[in-house]
């Protein structure tokens, strides 16, 4: 499995890591053994911005994957 498949798996399953990736992509990439080149950080920032736009469409500043809010 490539480093980026690992990264994708981690992003989908780990809310803290998603938050880390959004706030400090270079540090988050390093924490999973990926060298944070400028191009990579720019690509991550673009993805994070896209995700934030999707959240804004809902009118909420929420972590979508971790909080489909079904109270039980």
């Amino acid at each position, binding site marked *: *499995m*490539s*480093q*980026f*498949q690992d*990264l*994708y*798996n*981690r*992003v*989908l*399953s*780990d*809310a803290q890591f998603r938050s880390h990736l959004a706030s400090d992509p270079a540090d988050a990439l390093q924490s999973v053994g*990926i*060298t944070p*080149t*400028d*191009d*990579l950080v720019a*690509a*991550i920032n673009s*993805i994070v911005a*896209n*995700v934030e736009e*999707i*959240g804004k*469409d*809902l009118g909420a500043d929420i972590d*979508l*994957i*971790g*909080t*489909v*809010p*079904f*109270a*039980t």
Partner: protein
Amino acid sequence: MWTSDFFLTARSAARRALADLELNSPLLAGRASKWLASRCNPDQPESYFTHPQAVPILALPWWLETSIRGHVDVTFQADLMYSTINGYYFARIVDDLMDGHNIDCTVLPSLYFFIMKFHNTYHKYFGRTDSFWSEFERLLMETADSAAADCALEDIGATAFVQVSARKSAAGAIPMAAVCYLYKRAELLAPWEGLFRLFGCWHQMGDDLADWSDDSENGRRTWLLSEADRQRSANESIPAWMGRVGFQWAFEKMEGWMEEILAAGEGLNSPELVSYLSQRRESCRREVTALVNTAAAYAKLLQLDYVPQVQP
């Protein structure tokens, strides 16, 4: 979403439940409040039961009585809510334990109080030989039996999900049975219970969708995760399958149930219920569509293999 009459009655009942525990045992009340604080603000316990994404266990009996009489007996509804809230706390603590959540064992003696109040409240309205008690026993045992069976399931498919996993909430229909039997309309229980049963499927899948990562990490089996194991390719991880297929798969199941729920709701003479269900469908569609789109956005990470990784 809620009328002020309903909300104020729910608030009063939720606060009464904790106040009664405090009156009977300040020690237990303190411990129960700590447990409750992990789920909601214990100073506003009604928020847990009136949350827009919660199962409307307090509202369904209200709408049912309104459909029969055109209005509700607020005192009766307040008692139903009080019973239901105590029953819910009982079921929630048991469920948390069964799911392996970290729960302070000093909370457990409060279970005596919760089940007592859940049960005793109905004695005010139904004599010991009333037919209501048969429904009470049937529904409570269905919850107990489903909870026992659910935790032993290894590979869950559609049948097990509908007949077991989604039936853990069966006892939530007890206050609806109370309305039907108090007003001598026992024939209404089956259609309202049927709607609640379908809603249980819809909500359980939503819950499994929300918790898929935590469930996967902690080895809890759900239909969604069983499906992931059946469908994903040999080298595909569960998160990758969720992003590629799982979110959409679960959403389509929920859409199918919601169609059935709305069709069932149309025949129950309750515009409030139909309006509520329509709102839930729309908010769920927006949220899960956003979830699918978010997963798709993150899938671009898989293309980063091709971004140069050596600084020029």
